[in-house]
């Protein structure tokens, strides 16, 4: 079974540019999560989707970040415009059902804003 995949693995952009990160969860997993780890800090929750619905986006840093999950399959996280402090590793995770709990993580996308 394929695990959670993320694309790209690494992205280097200039301040002010736009970047879109993609996450493909494990097939059949309704729950999809985005997390972020910035340098020297802990891994932090960004948001939670159940199918195509955002259940909680309290962790999104500001309105430069937009997450979507059209059709309840893959998800995208867009940063527009990117700032230096957005640099970090963005993780995606998915879980099958809400009660049976294990989050499976993707390899992460390393975003570098210069």
């Amino acid at each position: 079974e394929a695990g959670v995949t993320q694309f790209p693995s690494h992205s280097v952009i200039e301040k002010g540019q736009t970047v879109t990160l993609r996450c493909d969860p494990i097939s059949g997993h309704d729950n999809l999560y985005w997390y972020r780890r910035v340098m020297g800090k802990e891994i932090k929750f960004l948001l939670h989707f159940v199918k195509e619905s955002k259940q909680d986006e309290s962790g999104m840093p500001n309105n430069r970040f937009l997450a979507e999950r059209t059709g309840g399959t893959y998800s995208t996280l867009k940063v527009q415009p990117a700032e230096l402090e957005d640099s970090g590793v963005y993780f995606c995770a998915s879980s099958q059902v809400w009660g049976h709990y294990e989050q499976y993580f993707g390899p992460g996308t390393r975003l570098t804003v210069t």
Partner: protein
Amino acid sequence: AQRVTQPEKLLSVFKGAPVELKCNYSYSGSPELFWYVQYSRQRLQLLLRHISRESIKGFTADLNKGETSFHLKKPFAQEEDSAMYYCALRWLRGGADGLTFGKGTHLIIQP
């Protein structure tokens, strides 16, 4: 708000020695605690969850609600245990949930 604290950024022990990675938490609800591990060049993966009360790769962790702790232990460390270890707490809010992580402990097992 919930919080997870891992006081040790780095822990270095010799092969065969006991290991204890500390984790303390604060949460107003009923806590669900996990240990995740990230080996070099691999993705984050679940090691243990307190609900299961199981031993994985020789590791155990007991939830102590009185001390609000969930320390990870192994009696005899092996070199392949070298990795980053993250303690995490699952929070619930309406129909949403998520994980709050500690900052992680880098465990190095010396030969």
